[in-house]
């Protein structure tokens, strides 16, 4: 292995993904080669239906590739069992969704702590402390016991960011994180994400907006299931 590849957090080699829609085989990904280094902030762009969602799902271990190889932190994830995939999602990945996806009727603090319910041997006291720190970072210390429906969209997304960070993941996957937000909230979220990047986090963000991709180190463009640049 070269020194170059040692630093790769993610390496995709000829990854394909096919799925059935009725009787028709859809080729969502047609051979993707991609590597992302530790500490990079990468944006993924492309028209809808180009396969970028499928790519995100594979990178986030929500789906398995049909063919090819996916190395995550040097390990070949194509051989993972379902439980290993779940564990990797829990420990290695932090998800940020377009529609926030917070649990209703559950306090901000408990929402942030949710992933630790699925961690093995989580120290309740320690993770609680971490959660409080993260909520302070995203400026929501005063909202700990509120339920999501009492928060604005921007605030909800900040809770989701805090949740994505609770297990100190190797990769943050943000799927159009500002898609449901106004420009003011979008600015706040992008500030937080660039801040996280500066602290050394690896972030992959799907977006439709060219001006948002300018915040990132580089942009991957996907078209018809292939990377075009």
């Amino acid at each position, binding site marked *: 292995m070269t020194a170059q590849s040692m630093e790769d957090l993610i390496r995709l080699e000829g990854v394909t993904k096919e799925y059935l829609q009725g009787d028709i085989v859809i080729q969502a990904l047609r051979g993707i080669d991609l590597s992302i280094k530790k500490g990079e902030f990468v944006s993924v762009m492309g028209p809808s239906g180009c396969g970028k969602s499928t790519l995100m799902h594979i990178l986030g271990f*929500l789906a398995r590739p049909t063919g090819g190889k996916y190395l995550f932190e040097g390990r070949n994830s194509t051989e993972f069992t379902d*439980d290993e995939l779940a564990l990797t999602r829990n420990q290695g990945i932090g998800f940020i969704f377009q529609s926030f996806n917070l649990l209703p009727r559950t306090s901000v603090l408990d929402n942030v702590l949710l992933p630790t319910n699925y961690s093995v041997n989580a120290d309740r006291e320690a993770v609680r402390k971490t959660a409080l720190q993260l909520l302070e970072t995203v400026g929501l210390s005063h909202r700990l016991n509120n339920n999501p429906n009492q928060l604005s969209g921007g605030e909800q997304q900040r809770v989701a960011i805090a949740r994505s960070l609770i297990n100190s993941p190797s990769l943050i996957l943000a799927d159009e994180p500002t898609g449901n937000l106004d420009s003011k909230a979008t600015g706040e979220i992008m500030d937080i994400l660039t801040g996280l990047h500066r602290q050394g986090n690896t972030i992959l963000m799907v977006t439709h907006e060219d001006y948002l991709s300018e915040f990132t180190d580089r942009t991957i463009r996907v078209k018809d299931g292939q990377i075009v640049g």
Partner: protein
Amino acid sequence: MVSWWQDIVYAFRSLWAVKSRAVLSMLGIIIGVMSVLAVASIGLSAQDLILSQVTSFGGDLIGVTPGGSQEDSPPPIALGIVLTTLKLGDAEALQDVRGVEYVVPYVNSTETVSLGRETAVTSVVGVNEQVQGLEGLEMAEGRFLTAEDVARFARVAVVGTTVAESLSPDRSLLGQTVSVKGVRFTVVGLTSEQGTAFFQNLDDRVLVPVTTAQRLVAGIDYVSAIRMRVIEGTNVDRLKEDAAQVMRRRHHISDPSKDDFTIGSTEQAAEMLGNVTGAMQGFLLIVTAISLLVGGINIMNIMFVSVRERRREIGLRKALGANSGRILRQFLAESGAMSLAGGTIGAAVGIAFSALVAVAVRHYGYSWTFFMPVSYVVGALVVAALIGMVSGVSPAVTASRLDPIVALREE
């Protein structure tokens, strides 16, 4: 262990969020557990009551009733036929059977007893002097009937407390004259409070000499039944056989299958009643258990709806690292919690209901004991929780198999 606890806490919280629906879905379990406990408790109390009634005179009693014991046809009394085969002479003859302590013939009729303008409808029972020993009667005032009263067709009466109070609430009935069917009886004694035995209120009756009752009150020449008390330590089966021989000789019967009388003991009666009530209780428990099952199906139904509604939540949990096993557990905990909560409510209502029945029955003068064994309550709750979990299996498996990508895409 900790994560189970989290699942359960979350389960109760999501139940609380949809209170009215949760209560509706628990209703089946609530009613099921309530009726199982109520039936079990009331059954135990009823069995206890029946046994205590049958054995309330203490020791072994033997009863002789008219008519043979035909197992394949209803007893004649059910058809309105009055059998007249049992005579006073039979009672006298049974006196000589070895091991018999007391023999009492009974003549029962319901009559209006009056004292001046006061009247009371009560049972007037013709007996002999030995009934005091057989029933263990205690006197409050005056004397009991004597053998001489019986022999002389005396117009004397011994009155129970209930009758005495309704006829003459202010002053003692002792020495006064009451009339039954125009026949005047002098009250020579008052029994003290006796309670009930054999489902008869011993305080609500007037005892008169059997001879007087036959001739002047009922106008009959037979007796309704004969009861015997056995000297302690006697072989009851031998005695019953001896008594049967005496009866057959008197009634000129050579073939025992043609007996025109039936001899039974309290032990037999208690056993038979125990069997009957046991079978009844078993049957009722099966019926109520079916309602528990229906409650379980109800919960399964609502869990399917819940899984359907919360696909996004399931998808999110999977994305955040929950494996299929954890999702399965979460929904099992939820259905288990739902039926455990329902079971707890049902148990509370069932206990309250049984206690209420006890109060009501005691009000009518029976010594009704309230039974609610802890093992029954715990058992019902465990069964309820199990039913909930079993009902939750299929919806929970559905939830655990959801593809997170599809689930997250749902709006």
